[in-house]
């Protein structure tokens, strides 16, 4: 069973529908016990870092995700706001985040070389795989994935970055740290390339 963490935000059902399509059983839950006993855990969604962290803390799920899942070696996937709250700190709402991965989250510049940059980034961007990682197995390098974000992750240790993209500035699009995988793009909205990555995560053994 895969637990999709319900923290009162984001579009959780779209991840559940994608998992159903792939034939993986999942449950949307805010219950710490169900999350602890799940085989895998996914933190998806759209939203702001501050509100996401407040909701996770209010539900008592921040320590569950950090200590009982990430540090305990259980497969954990963060999507969009998920990748951002895995880091230590976000410029968005000056939020202190989960700190599962060392690093911080920055806002895109409003202009690059004097030309205005439309923020948020909304649309399909190319994702370049900088290392060979099993989660990308079967996904062609430089495939497009669907992004909706104003902020992007900057891991302190660049070897945690497994894929990059470019929106005015080069940025980390996916991170791997042992049992923790996270993507800035929406796997559940990225067509068959996204579904393949999601399916790979559901089958990964660590």
């Amino acid at each position: 069973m895969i637990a999709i963490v319900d923290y009162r935000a984001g579009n959780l059902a779209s991840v559940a529908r994608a998992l159903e399509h792939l034939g993986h059983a999942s449950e949307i839950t805010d219950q710490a016990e169900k999350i602890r006993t799940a085989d895998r855990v996914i933190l998806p969604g759209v939203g702001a870092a501050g509100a996401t962290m407040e909701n996770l803390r209010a539900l008592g799920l921040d320590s569950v995700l950090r200590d009982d899942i990430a540090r305990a070696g259980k497969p954990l996937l963060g999507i969009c706001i998920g990748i951002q709250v895995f880091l230590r700190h976000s410029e968005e709402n000056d939020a202190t985040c989960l700190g599962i991965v060392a690093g911080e989250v920055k806002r895109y510049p409003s202009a690059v070389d004097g030309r205005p940059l439309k923020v948020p980034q909304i649309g399909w961007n190319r994702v370049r795989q900088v290392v060979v990682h099993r989660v990308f197995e079967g996904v062609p390098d430089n495939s497009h994935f669907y992004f909706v974000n104003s902020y992007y992750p900057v891991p302190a240790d660049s070897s945690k970055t497994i894929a990059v993209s470019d929106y005015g500035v080069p940025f980390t699009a996916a991170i791997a740290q042992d049992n923790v995988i996270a993507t800035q793009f929406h796997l559940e909205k990225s067509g068959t390339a996204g579904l393949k990555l999601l399916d790979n995560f559901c089958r990964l053994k660590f």
Partner: protein
Amino acid sequence: MLAKRIIPCLDVRNGQVTKGIQFLENVDVGDPVAMARYYYEEGADEIVFYDITASNERRGIMLDVVRAVAREIFIPFSVGGGLRTVEDMRAVLLAGAEKVSIDSGAVRNPQIIAEGARAFGSQCIVLSMQVKRREKSEAFPSGCEVIIDGGRTPTGRDALLWSQEGVRLGAGELCINSIDRDGTKAGYDLEVTKLISESVSVPVIASGGAGEPRHLLEAFTDGSADAAIVASIVHYGEHPIPDLKHYLKGHGVEIRDAINLERSAR
């Protein structure tokens, strides 16, 4: 760099897809779920549904369509038509749409843009507008007026000023549909699309008039559009999406490769 998006538009009335030619003489072209799945597999980057159901009692049918579509396609899709309140938007988003598209309802009550953006985030709110050419004047600096109620009611609002107000209120994207061009296959209104796209900080979607592949190329280059709505050009099979993408790539436009890993795996 972001890919330019090709967005097939499906007008849905009472649960059935139609394509309006300048909002007249709608012809049935199929089942919305089957058509959405078809375009998804063809490599559409997004899909938009406009609910043109006339009677309020039958609007629930659209939510059933949205739920069914959300189980079949795994790219973003938006739903518009008749959305007047935050609760209307919430129902569509909960049914599985990624975004809502608001039009006449936003002109009548601009605060719905701000309320929607607060409740769901700007990225969910597409401000769509039907625009009609007017003599450029102090009242219409863009040379286009916003028309509501399916092209029937002039508002006295200028397209550019309304775009800027919409973005200020929280719209995350703008869709500019030219009534003059809609259904003509004469190409998008590049002038107003470019004017608005270069004056706002959010993506702009060109709509109305695509009949030839070069019209999309013009929208993305001369029109500075971030995305383009297609309807007749794809609905009748004249120019399938893979052909449009091939053409655009050949002309140097950044386009998402229409790979289908599921189909090739089968």
